[in-house]
């Protein structure tokens, strides 16, 4: 009955290769750290590593939730605008004649992110609009509102209000709070994606949305929750950035969509959905973070890195595409 059983010869091998994609990425990371350490004495300093990890945390948090969105076959490019608007709103509220108390700023910021995420989720799941176009619109709206709110100026935050989330380290062990948040969020997302019913639904929707619906999975609700999560994660990143820079400005986090999408794709998430993992994305954000930081340390300018980043993004997608084509 050979025709009944189409087993590919490398069946057992295949799973090993998938695992090793993530392993290879971590290997690449280790090599990069070694190379940059050799090239630049400053790279391997405590100060630089700490700065680098804080920067990674800032974009890593959004990359984590975006991974889930992208596994369903969706996309959220409104995250940069969301971050900018969050920083503007926080700075604005704090600089009013009767400033909003500092303790209230965090829930207000997160509520803003949730509202933006719900807005995206509504149009994408209820009206079935294309996620790229919908979040592209939201990106323009949020960044535009940032300009309106600040009258296109930067609003400084003189007192250290949000600084405690952006800069402060946990006393004693010198670990930046953003890094702690990043680690906790990734641990939760890892559990959600690979050990929870919700995570399984995310994969099912990405693999075949119609089959997921027939199987009684509430496709709309799952996707709505993901866009909501993405919005909240972006506003959390916005809080961190506001804390680090002590300024609210509408130009914050420009082009950040590109960083985050590159990291998620590098981590092995398929643009078409159905495939991806949190560990892969972790490797992706670490590699990109080390790369940018390392390049800066050995003297490249932002403009050079931007060219490199664009080339890298296309190369990653091409590599995965070629690999998948070979498999079929």
């Amino acid at each position, binding site marked *: *009955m050979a*025709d*009944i*059983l*189409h*087993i*590919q010869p490398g*069946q*057992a091998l*295949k*799973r090993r290769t998938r695992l090793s994609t993530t392993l290879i990425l971590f290997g690449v990371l280790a090599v990069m750290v070694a190379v940059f350490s050799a090239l630049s004495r400053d790279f391997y300093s405590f100060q630089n590593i700490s700065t680098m990890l804080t920067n990674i945390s800032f974009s890593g948090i959004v990359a984590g939730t975006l991974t889930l969105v992208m596994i369903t076959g969706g996309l959220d490019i409104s995250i940069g605008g969301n971050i900018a608007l969050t920083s503007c709103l926080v700075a604005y509220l704090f600089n009013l004649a009767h400033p909003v108390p500092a303790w209230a700023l965090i829930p207000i910021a997160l509520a803003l992110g949730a509202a933006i995420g719900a807005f995206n989720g509504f149009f994408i799941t209820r009206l079935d609009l294309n996620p790229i176009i919908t979040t592209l619109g939201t990106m323009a709206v949020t960044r535009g509102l940032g300009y309106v709110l600040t009258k296109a100026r930067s609003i400084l935050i003189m007192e250290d209000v949000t600084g405690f989330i952006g800069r402060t380290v946990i006393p004693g062990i010198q670990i930046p709070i953003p890094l702690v948040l990043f680690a906790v969020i990734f641990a939760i997302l890892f559990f959600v994606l690979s*050990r*929870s*019913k*919700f*995570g*399984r*639904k995310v*994969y*099912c929707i990405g*693999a*075949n949305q*119609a*089959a*997921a*619906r*027939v*199987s*009684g*999975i*509430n496709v709309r609700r799952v996707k709505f929750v993901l866009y909501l999560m993405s919005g909240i994660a972006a506003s959390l990143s916005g809080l961190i950035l506001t804390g680090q820079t002590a300024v609210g400005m509408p130009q914050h986090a420009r082009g950040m969509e590109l960083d985050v999408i590159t990291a998620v794709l590098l981590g092995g998430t398929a643009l078409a959905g*159905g*495939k991806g993992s949190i560990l892969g994305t972790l490797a992706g954000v670490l590699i990109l973070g080390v790369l940018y930081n390392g390049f800066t340390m050995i003297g490249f300018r932002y403009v050079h890195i931007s060219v490199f980043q664009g080339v890298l993004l296309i190369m990653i997608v091409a590599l995965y595409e070629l690999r998948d084509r070979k498999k079929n």
Partner: protein
Amino acid sequence: MEQPLLEMRNISKQFPGVQALKDVSIDLRAGEVLGLVGENGAGKSTLIKILAGDYRADTGEIFINGRKVDFRSPSDAAAMGIQFIYQELITLDTLTVAENLLVGHLPTRKMIGMVDWKAANENARQVLETMNIDLDPRTIVGDLTVHQKQVLEIAKAIHKKATILVMDEPTAALGEEDTQSLFAIIRNLKEQGVGVIHISHRLKEVFDITDRVTVLRDGQKIDTVQTSQATMTQLISMMVGRELAEFYPKRDLPIGDTLLEVGDLTINGIIDRVSFSLRSGEIVGLFGLLGSGRMNVLRALYGLDGYDAGRVAVKGTPTIINGPRGALGNGIGYMPIDRKLEGLALGLPVSSNITMANIDNIGRGFALNRRLEREKAQKWVNDVSIRTPDIATDANSLSGGNQQKIVLAKLLETGSKIFLMNEPTRGIDVGAKVDIYHMMENLCEAGAGIVMISSELPEMLSMADRIIVIAKGKVTAEFNRAEATQEKLLHATTL
């Protein structure tokens, strides 16, 4: 006898494990309509695909006007004046009638190569007029009805100088009036000397429009007869012709209480006051032609499509089916007609596919109990005899029969009592079919009930305890197992 327009001589074609065609010969004369009939799998489509150049025959020859031809691709067939109208129309919906008609050779202004729209619309108008077709060249094709699109396709074929027109189930999606108007156009083509091959499941139409009929069964030609000298009964017995083998493991099981009661289910314009009931231990077959509405009944009962009116009662309790979740909550499970489209998450492992419709019950609370999932998946792989290296294997790498068994396992895992199965053995090999029949019988023995759609007559007659015939959205007949025959069923579809 005059030279035939087309002759296919001694065509044989073997696919892995199946002899699709064996020594089949047909001929078509100018100005004639030849009907090609047979059950699903009889070899009609294979024969047509060989003529179109999609497949190459293993042995056999094709002659056009007495000249031997060798088609290696569909464009070869087109170059010899053969055009095909398939069930699924391939019109360019965002363009106009004129653009569709003249695609590839739109008139251009000499100097700059731009399309001369005035001339294009005028050309198209003339083409349509000579064929007595009432269409405005400037209409956007997406706005046309199915019938109008079909007429447009025919016009396009004729405009490309087709002398042989092959139509595969052209009336499947048409109502009575449009069918008659299509036939008027075909008769017009006959007068112009075009030869038409007409494939249809609707025998009544075969008598309306064809001059001769060729009957295929199990890849062989049974006979070609003059339509005027044949009877409906004669054609049906030629199509069916075989004894139903032991192949179907149907058992006599006790029939219990009513599980599902459907009253006056209506979807405006599609199904009209469909009523039936399903009892435990019973398989009820819904039989009908393509487009009869039988699938809409099943989809509505599972909440995939809404319905406009009607009552549904599950175990005597009136219920409103509110989406697939609601249906599953009421103990109703559904097996989709196309496993790749709506059944499987290809790219995910066998285990994830099996638990997919019951994921909320795999473990307590938020967490997924992965050990429980593995146990359940392994149990179903054994019980339904899914042939797979292990439960972690990608569902995509298994054969159609094993994929279908995964869909069945998924359905069983939901613990449903009422199963709606849309073509449960479509496109799978015989061994897997028998396994699925056994599972269906086991379900009935355990007190479940099954509503089944099948377009394979033998399967319907052998597995269903009762058969409800649906034609044009209405129930036209109901037969119990003892009284149902192929002839009666086919006849009821013409009512």
